[in-house]
């Protein structure tokens, strides 16, 4: 029983990283209407930058806000310079652009920092806390808190600020938003920026546990895609819940469902997606909406 609990807790901890990445993917999707395959690589890049900053002697209290700002500028810049030119060429061209971004970012990271894995010290120290039969590392607790904060902040921006209102307007109906005088182009860039910032936090939190390498987020990206589908592309909350569910489900299934095992761990989230899409194409939390003909 205590192993079941521990497995669930571990699943939630890893699920938080998927959740943050899934949120980033959902944000881009709501604005630009494409999946950003490079979202994971952006997060990896951010993790390496934070590593470089910490090697340069910056304290973590500074690194986190600096990283978030840098990531925002980077994400918005990528949208303006590299994604904007192909907008209007259809979802497939956009998708291919993000695939090219994935390859390019991955190569840049490997060129600067090499392909060997490096250790990154946890900003939260190495302490271990025991609660009943469960063990929590300081990294898991601190990292979890950081990701949660980022997600709550992001949610608050969308729900309670005028900027958020405009972002939502553009996501819901770009044409009407334009008629209302909202600069849709600017809002799309802002969306990419916020997504990159949330993703950066995911990378920062994942790196001390997984070790820094160009493949840091490869697997997490797949699971985040599964999470977004599960939760529904139209729902930010759904993406987060989807991430947590995927984290717990893939942990428990590979442990307790006979015949699955670790090597087919990846199959679980996708089997779930398959079922969800067939039964509820809009995702668990998505709103069904009429297909515009």
């Amino acid at each position, binding site marked *: 029983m205590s192993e079941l609990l521990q497995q669930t807790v571990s699943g939630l901890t890893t699920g938080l990283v998927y959740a943050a990445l899934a949120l980033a993917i959902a944000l881009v999707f709501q604005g630009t209407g494409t999946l950003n395959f490079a979202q994971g690589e952006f997060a990896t890049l951010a993790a390496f930058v934070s590593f470089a900053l910490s090697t340069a002697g910056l304290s973590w209290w500074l690194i986190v806000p600096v990283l978030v700002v840098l990531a925002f500028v980077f994400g918005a810049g990528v949208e303006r310079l590299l994604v904007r*030119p192909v907008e209007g060429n259809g*979802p497939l061209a956009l998708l291919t652009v993000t695939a090219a971004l994935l390859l390019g970012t991955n190569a840049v990271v490997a060129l600067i920092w090499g392909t060997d894995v490096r250790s990154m010290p946890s900003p939260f120290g190495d302490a271990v806390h025991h609660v009943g039969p469960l063990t929590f590392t300081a990294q898991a607790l601190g990292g979890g808190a950081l990701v949660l904060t980022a997600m709550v902040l992001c949610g608050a921006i969308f729900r309670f600020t005028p900027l958020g209102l405009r972002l939502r307007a553009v996501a819901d109906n770009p044409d009407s938003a334009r008629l209302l005088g909202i600069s849709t182009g600017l809002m799309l860039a802002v969306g990419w920026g916020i997504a990159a910032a949330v993703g950066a936090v995911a990378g920062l939190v994942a790196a001390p546990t997984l070790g820094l390498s160009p493949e840091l987020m490869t697997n997490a990206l797949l699971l985040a895609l599964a999470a977004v589908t599960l939760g529904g592309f139209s729902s930010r909350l759904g993406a987060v819940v989807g991430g947590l569910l995927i984290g717990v489900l893939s942990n428990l299934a590979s442990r307790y469902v006979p015949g699955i095992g670790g090597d087919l761990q990846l199959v679980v989230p996708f089997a779930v997606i398959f079922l969800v899409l067939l039964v509820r194409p809009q995702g668990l939390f998505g709103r069904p909406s009429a297909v515009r003909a």
Partner: protein
Amino acid sequence: MATSISGPATRTVAATPGSPRAAAPALDELRPLWRRPVTWAWTALFVVALVVPFLISDYDLFKATRVLTVAIAVAGLNLLIGRAGQISAGHGALYGLGAYTAMILVKELGWGWPLAVLAAVIVSGAAGWLIGLPALRVRGLNLGLLTIAIAAIFPLLLSRFEGITGGTIGLQLAGSPITPPGGLALTPEQFQFLLLVVVLAVVLVLLRNLTTGPLGRAVEALRVNPLMARSEGVDVNRLTLTMFGISSAVAGLGGALGGLVLASTVPDSYSMFFSLTLLSACVVGGSRTWAGSLVGAAFIVYLPDVISQHIGSTTGGQWSQLVYAVALLLTLFFLPAGVAGGAGRLVTRLTGGPRRRSKA
């Protein structure tokens, strides 16, 4: 959010280079086949392709043969994406399914290769039909995700069921079973290349006829507006499944021939990355031109090699990857209709055709 999926898609329809062209082929097609220049161009190309094997080395032929097997798969993808308006990010898995089916039949059951290839086509087609089932409910990027899930899982399953698939080291033959029949004084590479030229030609002709006939008009209606297609008596579900089936069968054909020419099938060949590469070949070549399948395949097969040969040091691999990514981006920026579509547009401009903006 389904609206924003179909939003850009509807815009694409208006923006494709195909639409201004729409009237032209209709007139062009009033002429008999033998009087159309495009027929002559393809025929000339075909004849040239028949001479090529006697001019270049077996190594270059081997590589060109791989381009042709990939081009078959991309042609299948073009049918689905460019004509039927459905996304599949899982065609790498179908290509692999064709390869494994043919390989197992030849290696384990001792079938002759033509029969094994035929069986592979049927198996892949059936698998594609099954994959098409969710497409009846799910469209756009959700479908893309679903098919990418298939692409991600396929190599894992190949590794798991090693009893049939040989596990992670896959299945190998001592040599390709596709050898010239007795009496033909050709090297295996020459024969394989010629065979693939003929197969690709047949596939392209069949696909072209499929999309210009009455079925083609129904497919066009399906892409532009499924609701309207339905109202005009098109059985949308059946048509969607048929398109998935044909497209997958064609991909399986390419895979079966590719696997047998290589005489080897390994799970690593059919990774999710390969599926995405096929998708980028489709976009780079131009999903609505049949020549695009050949151009796109050449792009993804030759470019990485060309780049790595020019950079070619043990530390240059990352640079090649970066250059490839940049080349892909530049193609998308400057040739939104793909290389084949873009080249055609350039010719029109140079030869005094009306100027058109590159995108809507």
